[in-house]
């Protein structure tokens, strides 16, 4: 009879111990879960009084499609294009060519191209009505690039399917032909058709020599073209076709050669931002970084207030001023751009508006205290 007890003890006791262990784990997990949800419960966002006093907006009222106000004429042309009318778009681009305003020609053609990437009926009508229109050719080339991007999607490579990559490469390859046509039809002195090629260089991985060739065409026509520099810097970044060294050198070179007010001083900051993988803000508070921010502040103060990219520079300045605990200066920049968040650094984040408002409110609180 004693053997039965031995057997029971041998089997039963370990089972009991196992059961107790599981029970303990379950209770612990439940407690942690309960605490965790308590911590995470942020509650709805509340606009601080200081922000409200300056007329600043909560995250849900921030515009997530633009870095700053969109010119009324452009908005009208975009709406017309969506409705199938190409004429306002054509008039807009003709005006930039007449005024030789290559910065705005780039901005307008880029917005129009993203509309055409969804539906190009109006662009086809434009091409049919004016077969050799340089503006239409430019929008065509840029819309093909945008279409390739839409097919690929914005996910990282491992979340992108083979079908998406295949479509991306096929359409990107088509864009080469469209770029060539835009260049051939281009307005004399216009760097935009060349600058548009950089996206294809980036997507298809053109060799550095080819990129330098395109770059010479651009700088011969416009040495301080903002969006050309912006895309070219992306090309030279380590995550695309260059390296940290190449990107930093490119940015420093652009900033050194440019006159005050050209906004070129923002590129060293972007090069730093693109290669910054640290979790702390120490690297953003060095004397070198303070000097870069000072230079950009002077640049933006001297810039034409109607420059289409001035808001983007202010967004990045606000970010670094906040990190450098220069909160009053940061609030000044935040105040000037509030209402729009589609800009570096926020646009790389999962919740751009939330991230923007968090940093803004930090600076507001510190500046007040």
């Amino acid at each position: 009879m004693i053997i039965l007890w031995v057997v029971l003890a041998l089997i039963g006791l370990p089972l009991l111990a196992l059961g107790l262990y599981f029970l303990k784990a379950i209770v612990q997990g439940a407690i942690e879960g309960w605490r965790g949800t308590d911590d995470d419960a942020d509650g709805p966002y509340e606009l601080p009084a200081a922000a409200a006093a300056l007329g600043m907006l909560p995250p849900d009222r921030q515009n997530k499609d633009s870095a700053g106000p969109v010119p009324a004429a452009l908005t009208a042309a975009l709406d017309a294009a969506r409705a199938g009318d190409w004429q306002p778009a054509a008039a807009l681009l003709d005006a930039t060519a007449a005024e030789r305003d290559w910065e705005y020609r780039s901005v307008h053609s880029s917005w129009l191209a993203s509309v055409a990437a969804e539906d190009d009926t109006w662009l086809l009508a434009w091409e049919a009505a004016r077969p050799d229109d340089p503006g239409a050719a430019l929008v065509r080339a840029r819309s093909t690039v945008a279409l390739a991007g839409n097919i690929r999607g914005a996910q990282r490579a491992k979340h992108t399917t083979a079908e998406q990559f295949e479509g991306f490469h096929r359409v990107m390859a088509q864009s080469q032909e469209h770029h060539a046509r835009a260049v051939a039809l281009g307005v004399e002195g216009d760097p935009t058709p060349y600058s548009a090629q950089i996206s294809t260089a980036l997507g298809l991985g053109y060799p550095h020599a080819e990129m330098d060739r395109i770059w010479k065409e651009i700088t011969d026509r416009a040495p301080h073209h903002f969006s050309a520099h912006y895309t070219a810097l992306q090309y030279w970044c380590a995550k695309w076709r260059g390296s940290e060294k190449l990107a930093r050198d490119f940015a420093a070179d652009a900033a050194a050669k440019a006159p005050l007010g050209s906004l070129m001083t923002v590129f060293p900051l972007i090069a730093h931002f693109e290669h910054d993988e640290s979790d702390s803000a120490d690297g953003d508070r060095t004397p070198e970084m303070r000097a870069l921010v000072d230079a950009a502040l002077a640049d933006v103060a001297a810039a034409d207030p109607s420059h289409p990219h001035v808001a983007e520079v202010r967004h990045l300045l606000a970010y670094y001023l906040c990190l450098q605990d220069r909160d009053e200066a940061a609030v000044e920049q935040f105040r000037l751009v509030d209402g729009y968040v589609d800009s570096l650094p926020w646009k790389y984040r999962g919740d751009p508006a939330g991230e923007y408002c968090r940093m803004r409110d930090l600076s507001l609180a510190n500046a007040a205290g």
Partner: protein
Amino acid sequence: MGATLRAVRALVLLAGFYLLGVVLLAVLVGIDWLLYRYAPASLAAKLYLVSVLLAIPVVRGLFMLRTPREEETAGLPATEADEPELWRTVRELAEQVGTRAPSRILLTADVNAAVAEDARLLGLLPGPRRLYLGVPLLQGLSEAQLRAVLAHELGHYSNSDTRLAALTVRGRAQVLRTITHFEQRADKSAAREQARQEKKNAKAEAKGKQAKEVDPGHAGVTYRMMAKIYITYAKLYFRATLSVSRRQEYAADAAAARIAGRDATAAALREIPVLDASFGFYMNCYATLGSGSELLPPRGEVFGGFGRMLSARQLELAGMRTELPTEPSSPYDSHPPIADRVRRIEELPDDGRADEARGAALDLLSDAQNTLVALEDVALTDDVRRFSRTRDWQELLDRTMAESFGSGSTSLHRAYVMYTKDQPTLPALLKLIEDGQLWQLAKRLPLSDEAAAANGRAFREFVRPTLHRSLISMALAELNARSLLRWEFSWERSAIPHLPPAPDGTETDLAEVVAPAVADAPDTAPLRALLANDSQHRGAL
């Protein structure tokens, strides 16, 4: 540990393989005896029942060990009277290696050379030997290379390493055969279960129900459990005997290099993986080309074509020879990786025999053509032999293509049926494209999540490759039906379709003719012109 000691250990482990089931049963009986002695009767009765349930798979496992006697692989017996040259070579090699010559030679239809022995008493006693010799191997090797291969195979039985080495070889072969048999039976019962479930699903689908996932998971659980125990043990055995086997492989290679020459041995080792891959490709793409339409090439050509393909694709093969497999072909394989074996042989000093016996190994046969014909009778199943024979390879290709297009079914065909509830024909599809309904039709294609979520231009880009491919194959079918298509048979490349020439006399590129029909603004005119063979209209392209 000396070689002999290692071989003895291998023998003990081999005995363990066969005693495993007995030991397991003994353990169960021992437990029952303990229960009988010490446990109260009511509890003991229940536990007896459990032990009986556990004993069932063990007993089944014991029966599983009764592997059926190795079936003779189907082969064409080559008698000494028929093939004096081959027999003379084999005897001479056996003598040089220092072992018995096989008593039979069987010609087979695979890239293989093997000496098998009907060993008795679980591989402990020798038995009659057979040499299996694949004709495709003869087609691909030179005479000297074949001698190297045969010297290697015979070398396994030479006992040159240790007297027990040959025993290890036989033991390994037996255990391998046993577990292969297990796996085959487990697969078979799983396949039966799968077929049963699929049938059930088909029925459920016919009734419009959601089909269940097919999972052969639980078929023959006890059987597989036992098989797993034996396989685990066998793996242990293989690992323990691996070093002995590897040594024997190197020794056999060294013997081959001594007998057949260093360069021929290295070249043969390089050649075999290439021949193996090429033969698989040949069987897939040439020999069985017409199997869907129950057609065979002329007599003697089913295997005879392989030699022709090898000579036509010399350039391609030369590239393959430089890349050697660096991994063993299977975990049970006693052969070291080929790259390693080739390296060891090529490190031997030059023996100045590079130019020996360069003639084709196939010439050892007294009437190769006749052998190729006779081989078909043993290698092909009765059903396949009843297929009708074509006059030549070109006719085989023509008739196969004609039949395959008759039953063409692409995803575009199915989308068309879904959209129109009508028969999918090319003229009807072109009409639908001209009516501007192509992109509506495209929504019925099987789509990935990303493609289904896309709209407008992005959607059209997602579906365009499928539309283009499907339309090309529909166009080929239509051209074939209108006798506008000619297929060129080639030993070097895959079959090439020839279309009616373009207006300027150059080759028509079908992909280019079809592309406008699936463009954003579809234009079917070039394709219609091609179908009408109206070269004037196609000038507009």
